[in-house]
């Protein structure tokens, strides 16, 4: 039973990339790889020097996973108090997941500050490794089998500033199974370098 359940889990994990189908803009007839990512801004109109300054700050603040190059960056600017909320969606060809950052632009200091992120632009090989490490953990095996969870996990990158509070100031990966039907969520915080699970969490709705 347990074997079958976990076999199904890994099968679903492997299916993730196969199931998602992204559709790209087909307007240019010939596409050539660009060295710099394409940059789009929409929402609140920002022009001229301010746009360039903001763009440069955003480019410096983004932290793709080593080996991942952003191909396109979409920025949506909305008013927030006296400043701007900037939702930055960065995509890469090596991953179907997106890296999403939220920045606040302070017009006084003319600086942006990172307020949040959801980072899923993770190459399939790295993703599989994180899931495998989580599944090899005896504790995770026990939790998953006890809750009979058979859904595909999501994998997100956790930046060192956040990871420091839970383990160490280094990049970690959060592997999470959300079974909404059973109202159970199980997550493992994975250290890829050492190949081990450093924290686990179970949530019930």
């Amino acid at each position, binding site marked *: 039973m347990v074997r079958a359940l976990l076999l199904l889990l890994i099968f679903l994990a492997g299916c993730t990339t196969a199931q998602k189908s992204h559709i790209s803009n087909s*307007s240019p007839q010939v596409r050539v790889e660009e060295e710099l990512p394409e940059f789009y801004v929409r929402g609140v109109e920002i022009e001229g020097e301010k746009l360039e300054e903001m763009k440069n700050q955003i480019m410096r603040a983004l932290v793709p996973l080593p080996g991942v190059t952003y191909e396109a960056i979409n920025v949506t600017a909305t008013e927030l108090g006296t400043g701007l909320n900037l939702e930055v969606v960065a995509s890469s060809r090596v991953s179907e997941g997106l890296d999403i950052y939220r920045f606040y632009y302070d017009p006084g200091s003319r600086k942006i500050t990172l307020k949040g992120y959801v980072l899923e632009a993770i190459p399939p090989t790295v993703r599989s490794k994180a899931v495998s490490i989580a599944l090899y953990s005896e504790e995770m095996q026990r939790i998953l089998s006890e809750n009979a969870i058979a859904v595909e996990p999501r994998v997100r990158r956790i930046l060192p500033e956040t990871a420091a509070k839970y383990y160490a100031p280094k990049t970690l990966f959060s592997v999470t199974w959300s079974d909404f039907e059973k109202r159970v969520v199980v997550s493992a915080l994975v250290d890829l370098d050492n190949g081990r699970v450093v924290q686990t969490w179970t949530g019930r709705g």
Partner: protein
Amino acid sequence: MRYFIVALLALGMIVAANAVSVEKVAVLEAKAAVQTGGQDSITSLIINPMYRGLQLKPGEEEEFTVKVKNREDRAVELEPRLWAMPFGEYVLEEEWVNISPARAVVEKGGEQEFTIKVSVPADADVGSYGAQIIFTNETTPSMPYPYPRMPSALTLSVSVWKPPTVVVSNNFIHDRVEAGKTYEYVVSVENRGNTTIPMNPKFGDERYDVRCAGMYCPGELEEDWITITAPDSIPPHSRAKVRIAVKLPEYARGQYEGRINLNIEDPSRPEWRRYDQLVTLSLQVWQKPSSPYEKVFTVKDGTEMLSVEVSVSEFAYEKYGTCGRPVAEPSFKVWFIDPGSREVRVEPTKTVIAETVNLGSWGQPPWEAECSPGMYSVERITFRNTFLIENPEAGTWHLYIMPENAQKFEYTIEVK
């Protein structure tokens, strides 16, 4: 290729699944040995874990412990040693494995811990190595297999790997394209090694080609639609670009898939593991319809209102597309022909944009919740227009819908 990867992951999971049930299996086996009259000669031991899988690079070493509990009513002498399994890619060399202590006497009901240290030589070949560490010399038949089974053993698997010398930047290309046009895609290949590596990209590869079966399978890209331009080698510490031009004929329709094997002689990858050198092209040919969709329906006498609702939905990832460029929003033109053969064009009386937004607040582990405060995630967006015609003439009506930037749409006709 994706089917191949799924198969590999599934195979890999068998390994994990073995690890899951280690303790339970061990207990069951021990009980079986105790309870079965004919198996009195099998020493009842609980071995934990019964499986261990290691991933090591040449020159690396790792150690772990295994606990052996004696369930006999007497002391047992254990002398663990390596036992080659008659299957697998490579047999684990005895010199690679050190077991400490080499011998131990475990009292009745007692437990002994052994430390297993695996050291992979620097010149070891990449591959999968396996063996069993047996704690007794006892065997049981294992029909239908022609070799005996070792009941008191730990199965040890060592995957010797090296980081890839060649890194392919983009091996899954998905795009929405139009028939009759030519598209070019560029795959970047990086050689991180110190030697020049040959490359010979070819369209198609039967070795990794797991054919899709069934009515919903995509069509296959034709070889003569594809032109590949690439250098025949990649100098050390440099990048090469493989340009793939796809010329779609006018008659192309629907979904197409095809694979290109980059044929790169990566010294750190055995040939069977070079599936990551396959570039999958998945193209959806969007054909602008030459005529609108037509639906004929009847309106009865005394009808006060004819209401038509047309909607189109897309997932957020479709909106951003593979390359992150925003995709044009879907739309549609709607008109009618009334029973008197007159064209009726009406503006939508109601336009609805509906989104499924996930705040992600429920079901997030603390390390995710902390880094994504107030992050809204649009999962799905729906555009819906409603067209109303009051007191429609009784008789046969024709509804026409012409979609723009949409692969599929839904509609409802309400007559009341």
